[in-house]
């Protein structure tokens, strides 16, 4: 009986040792690749779905996650090339940013160029009235020619 108990204890002890040998540890790393996504009024796209596509593979994401409360999503690439990060807020707003990774140097491949809002509004309103004015003029001109 004592021998049996000793045997079970020895087995348990060995398994415990084996289990202990599978402990985990963390090492701090610096650097990484990421984007901050905001709406056009500057408010962050928080807690939205983010997908990372590795260079040369736009079909299947290698990493999925969510942006943080500040609209930031970061990861650490393991190969050089153009990485693509897509953020989708689930309500029809999505953006894809391509970033070239060369070692620890990040070069934005494309940045959306937007006109300053004030100029955009003035230009847009002017164009709207211009388009409809031209359409009305053409319509009258055609009806005159026909008539």
């Amino acid at each position: 009986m004592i021998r049996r108990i000793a045997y079970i204890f020895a087995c348990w002890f060995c398994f415990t040792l084996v289990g202990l040998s599978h402990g985990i540890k963390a090492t701090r790393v610096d650097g990484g690749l990421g984007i901050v996504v905001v709406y056009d009024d500057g408010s962050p796209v928080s807690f939205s779905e983010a997908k990372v596509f590795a260079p040369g593979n736009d079909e299947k994401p290698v990493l999925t996650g969510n942006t943080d409360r500040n609209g930031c999503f970061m990861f650490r690439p393991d190969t050089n090339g153009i990485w693509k990060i897509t953020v989708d807020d689930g309500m029809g707003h999505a953006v894809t940013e391509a970033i070239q990774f060369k070692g620890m140097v990040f070069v934005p491949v494309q940045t959306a160029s937007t006109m300053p809002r004030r100029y955009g509004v003035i230009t847009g309103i002017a164009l709207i009235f211009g388009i409809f004015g031209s359409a009305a003029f053409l319509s009258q001109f055609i009806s005159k020619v026909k008539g």
Partner: protein
Amino acid sequence: MHISEGILSVPVLASGALLATAGIAIGVRKMPVEATPKTAMLSAVFFVASLIHIPFGPSNVHLILNGLAGILLGWTIFPALVVALFLQAVLFQFGGVTVLGVNTLIMSLPGVVVYYLFRFSCGCTRKRKTLFAMGIVLGALAVCLSGALLTVVLALGGKPFLSVAGAIVVAHIPVMIADGLVTGAALVFVLKVRPGLLWQSLSVNGL
């Protein structure tokens, strides 16, 4: 409520473009030359209103005013909104050129529905309180219908229907309220300063 590029599949984009083109064709046919300034003005109002953003929870919503445009324009809302949406896509990267048809459909179709509801419920009433109340209800309804259409389109694009619907409805509650109030106030204002503008659209659209 603009859908961005790269979210929808080609068949959904093509169907949206086709339906929007049909709506634009009907709208252009029903738009007399005299109604051009009004159409341009409401197109400009929609263009600017969409730039007024309201932060709400994790998302961000903006005024739409498709109910007001629908009541005053009828079917002509289609050409009015397609121009505004195109310029928003080009100037501010809101939505996109490939999703222009779908976005036009989502914004304009509820406007047409609201137009007919306004016509059949209000008739030619000149009571300010009635008009204001109808403006609130129909303005909010137009946003609600746009949200429903957006949900359907996103579901066709592969998004889970129920979760998207819940998020969109919750996120657009403040817009429904704001749009309803602005629509009601605008209708009362139009009745005060130029009542003919209200009934002009009804006669133009053959009602």
